């Protein structure tokens, strides 16, 4: 490869890089906290919390794993099939999906920007007894789940880490 071709490659690399920077900037500006993502069924956290169902009951990984996770519809069905409002139209919707063996694809409420390359883990936060609502807001009172903080704002994370003397080393999250 000639030096000319090589430098062309470099310029292309630079262009790609500039494009990425631009998309980063757009990502940073476009977070709209008031907008809740569309969901496959009208799930209400409020209705569940009123029945004393704790977050951990469905988001089972929150205390032990990196991701809190979402339950499969079969576990929704285990309550809803007989005992809990089996005739509700939204319940019927997912029961139908279950019969067809199709999963529900939930809309993600809190999305970390991929460009930040953050490896967030729920487990250490649960161990430090950080309440779910600190980051997720009072989801228990929400009919439609939506984010209450700008998750793309690293300052939010860092200020809490500082207050609680948790690590503020970059590698803790970005690696």
């Amino acid at each position: 490869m000639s030096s000319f071709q090589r430098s062309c490659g470099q310029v292309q690399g630079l262009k790609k890089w500039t494009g990425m920077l631009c998309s980063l900037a757009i990502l940073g500006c476009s977070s709209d906290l008031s907008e809740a993502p569309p969901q496959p069924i009208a799930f209400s956290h409020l209705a569940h919390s009123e029945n004393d169902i704790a977050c951990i009951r469905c988001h089972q990984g929150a205390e032990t794993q990196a991701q809190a996770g979402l339950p499969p519809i079969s576990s929704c069905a285990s309550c809803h099939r007989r005992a809990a409002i089996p005739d509700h139209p939204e319940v019927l919707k997912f029961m139908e999906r279950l019969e067809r063996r199709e999963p529900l694809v939930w809309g993600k409420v809190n999305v970390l920007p991929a460009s930040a390359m953050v490896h967030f883990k729920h487990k250490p936060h649960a161990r430090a007894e950080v309440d779910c609502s600190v980051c997720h807001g009072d989801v228990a009172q929400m009919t439609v789940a939506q984010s209450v903080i700008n998750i793309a704002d690293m300052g939010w994370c860092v200020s809490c880490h500082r207050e609680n003397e948790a690590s503020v080393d970059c590698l803790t999250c970005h690696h």
Partner: protein
Amino acid sequence: MTRWGMVIDTDRCTGCGACVVACHAENNIQTVGEEEAKNGRAMHWLRIERHYEGEFPDIRVRFLPVLCQQCGSAPCEPVCPVYATYRTPEGLNAMVYSRCIGTRYCANNCPYTVRFFNWHAGEWPKPLDRQLNPDVSVRPAGVMEKCTFCVQRIQDGQDRAKDENRSVTDADIETACSQSCPAQAITFGDLENSDSRVAQMAKSARASHLLEDLGTDPSVIYLLGGE
């Protein structure tokens, strides 16, 4: 205080390359292909250097696994204009991908040539993407990368120790390269902990640093081969 370190016994190394493969698999390192390798853009966070001693036919080959030396006084750090590479409190030479703007000054200043620039984004055509390690970021084009001493494994070990309310021991953390070495040439641990294997091995009369006279204060210690 903790200072993560590694001891490599060159007498044990057979140059098999298992560590190189393990490192690629663990850390989502891309393979650049023949053309790019010809341009000197091959990416191996860990490579095995071959050194020949003597004249044919009385020849002897020595192998030297070379990786980021996680220097205490790293030449790559002060040249970064955006503080994307720095020394962590645990003695790692950190590389923050999301901060890197790709000037490549760090790679130019590294005497061990163990930093690699992503000229292109890595490609893992389906179903190869399923082999990617979810604990390690896939680096985009335009970003520098290098050995992290498997920081995700360090964190995992620390997490387990914290669960059990105790301090980290040798048994908690093993890097991908040391785990895969059939000859057990590579040992990882805390150099500051006098009970650790690495601290014991570092006392050996065979202990040496790579390019020691540069004063980079590496965290990788080589046990030189005997006669």
